[in-house]
């Protein structure tokens, strides 16, 4: 397992190199000018040209790439051109926390909602409960997160004033209570769609396992249904569920932009959208590199968890 992990981590190097070249080229070949965006609507061509020169944007692309990549290797991701004096690593750090907390919280909601409901739907297949849960999951899958969020804001924040409509509180500096107060609506908005999807996957996976021969044997031996579901079937259906959780987590990270904007959360999605809008090259490149690394690491983590869930995979 150790060797496997090291091998997968080593594979990060070519992945990051390729991602860095691709993102650098895409960002720099996309029309637009960070200097013009920095100086505003009324900037004169002379002012823009002077800033171009100062930022090194007139150098050949290869020179700019080598300069950037060289700095990255020393841990210096450069400085934002859209927000003066802010290092890219500092901005990523400050924006990563809200996003990761939102993703984790939304995934917790997803798991705690989807697994039990998926199991109930599987056990009561064909019943009224199963039909009701199917409607629930279809509604969840069909409802975009922004619409869900807007509906909840209008209901819980504007009409009843039970929750804040917007804002973010850091759990480490502002306290855990305010954090949950501000983050619950966004997390539910983001998690609901994944919960619906995961519920269906849990149900399908569990039904498949429940119809296998060894379950029939257990039933024939008189093993209690509860034990069959929780001890024998559920663990074997976990592989699919773990994959869905992993995908859900990555999509929560990637799809947080809309929810972040809707709830005024200063997260990575929001930062990425703004950076693209302002052609903040260094920040776009830094975030993309980080997301690429995160994807590889999450997939690695899922593979490792597979091994714990199913020893056969570990042996292979």
């Amino acid at each position: 397992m150790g060797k496997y992990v090291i091998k997968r981590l080593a594979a990060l190097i070519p992945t990051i190199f390729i991602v860095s070249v691709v993102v650098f080229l895409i960002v720099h070949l996309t029309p637009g000018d960070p200097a013009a965006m920095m100086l505003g609507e009324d900037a004169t061509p002379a002012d823009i040209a002077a800033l171009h020169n100062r930022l090194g944007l007139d150098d050949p692309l290869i020179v700019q790439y080598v300069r950037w990549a060289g700095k990255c290797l020393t841990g210096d991701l450069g400085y934002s051109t859209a927000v003066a004096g802010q290092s890219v690593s500092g901005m990523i750090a400050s924006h990563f926390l809200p996003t990761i907390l939102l993703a984790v919280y939304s995934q917790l909601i997803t798991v705690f909602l989807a697994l039990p409901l998926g199991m109930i739907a599987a056990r009561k297949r064909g019943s009224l409960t199963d039909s009701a849960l199917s409607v629930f999951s279809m509604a969840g899958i069909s409802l975009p997160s922004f619409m869900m969020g807007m509906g909840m804001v209008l209901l819980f924040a504007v009409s009843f004033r039970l929750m804040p409509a917007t804002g973010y509180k850091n759990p480490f500096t502002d306290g855990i209570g305010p954090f949950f107060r501000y983050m619950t609506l966004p997390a539910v908005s983001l998690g609901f769609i994944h919960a619906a999807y995961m519920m269906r996957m849990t149900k399908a996976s569990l039904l498949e396992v429940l119809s296998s021969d060894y379950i029939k044997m257990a039933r024939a031996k008189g093993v209690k249904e509860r034990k069959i579901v929780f001890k024998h079937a559920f663990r074997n259906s976990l592989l699919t569920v773990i994959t869905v959780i992993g995908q859900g987590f990555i999509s929560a990270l990637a799809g947080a932009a809309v929810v972040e904007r809707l709830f005024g959360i200063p997260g990575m999605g929001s930062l990425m959208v703004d950076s693209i809008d302002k052609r903040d090259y260094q920040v776009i490149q830094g975030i993309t590199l980080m997301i690429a690394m995160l994807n590889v690491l999450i997939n690695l983590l899922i593979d490792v968890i597979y091994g714990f869930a199913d020893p056969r995979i570990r042996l292979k």
Partner: protein
Amino acid sequence: MNNFKKLLSLAAVLALLTGCFIPALAEEEYADVIRIADDNQASSYDLHKDTSVNARNMLRGTVMEQLVTLKADGSIGPELAESYEVNENNSAFTFHLRKGVRFHNGKEMTSADVVASLNRWIESFSTVRNMVGDARFEASDDYTVTLTLNNSAIMLLDMLAGAAQCAVIYPAESIAAVNAETGFIPADQLIGTGPYKFSEWAVDQYVKLERFDDYAPYGDPDAELDGLWGYKHAYTGTLMYYITKDADTRVNGLLAGDYDFAVKVTDANLDRIEADDQFTLYSQQTGMISLVWNKRSTDKYLRQAVQALANADDLNIVNYGVLYDNDPCFMEDGQLGWYTTAGSEYFCQNDPEKAKELLAQSSFDTSKPLRILYVNSGGAPAMVEILKQELETIGITSELIGQDRSTMTKTRTDDTAYDVFFTTFSSVPVPSLRSFLSADWAGWSEDEKLQEMMTAMTTAATKEEAFAQWEKIQEYCYADYCPVLMLGHFHQAAACTKKLTGYNVFLTTNFWNARLAK
């Protein structure tokens, strides 16, 4: 006697209650924080470099002050200056500074700070450099600064007082602390003399301004503010500007009680606020709406034809709803010193027959499309679609080139890429700063007559002469040259809880004397 003692005791208790508790209760009637939902953050908040509306609306007059500032009638009032003198031909300026004015770092403001600040201001803006040439501010003594030019600069005072390229005064130490790589003053050195200190900037979250207890106010404490000029009380301890980029979220936050004030309320949200009697809604002209012609690819007859054809209401309503005026002036209605309706008879005439006649005189090849460049977000796509339909009625086909803002900002500098582009312009203090009148800005108003008129305006001997010249320029632009298709002015609406009082609305909303009832 006992009764007398009891009475005395009671009187003493009452006196205590009256003297201590009642004022205390009165003080507690107002909140110590006003929460403002701002629509974006600035790139630096360094007002010598950052001309964004967010930076200047938040800081000018609040954190940093200027030597002079604008009064409601467009005249100039001294702010950090005690008084000022200008010679007869507007080429020599002398400012006598107020004494005892302290920066937020505790240091007293002197001429060294003013000279360092204003010379950086000159270096920062090419429009100012063009006006003053090689001349720079100099200190005559600790409390007097001068600027002596080779030419008349009738608009210099307006620019020093204006809100677009803010001539704010920093301590010399802040100027020395400029980051060599970015060219901006670091956030921890954003120090001024205003009633609030720049306390904290949590990127993408909020900006916190805290009351400066040693602020040196000017003007009459019992009088209302006159424009941006007058006594600043700073009743409220903290002004929190929350960066809330989504317009619906700002309004939701206001209605839910998360914010006390929300900027840039969109037309779609007006009904929601008007329906709730706990909130106040208002709007003011904030900038002009226009299509800027590429004068290198179009002739004046084509431009006049489109001006004769356009229906401003049809175009504006799809983007701004009710938040616009069909106001022909190239300056905003609040800028009384420069407001004119000269040439207004040519403003969007909605006259297809006249348009056809003018088009017949044009060299424009109607077998080719008119290339219209615009930002493909917000209401601009709907506006250009309407324009496209209007143009078809006189036989002009259009090619709509929609791009994101950054790409469009780059494309518009290429004179072969488009014929006209849609944009809006924020307020400027003097007409010479209207970039579409410049020969080297996108669209290229290289017309010799126009540039001669512009020079005559900026070098006029008196303000009256400059204004007369400005009226001629606007008339000429409408009647003949047509550098832009002027569509009117957009409004920015803002909303706040009715518990908020005392805020000042002039060019923007200022919270110097605002109070929020608990």
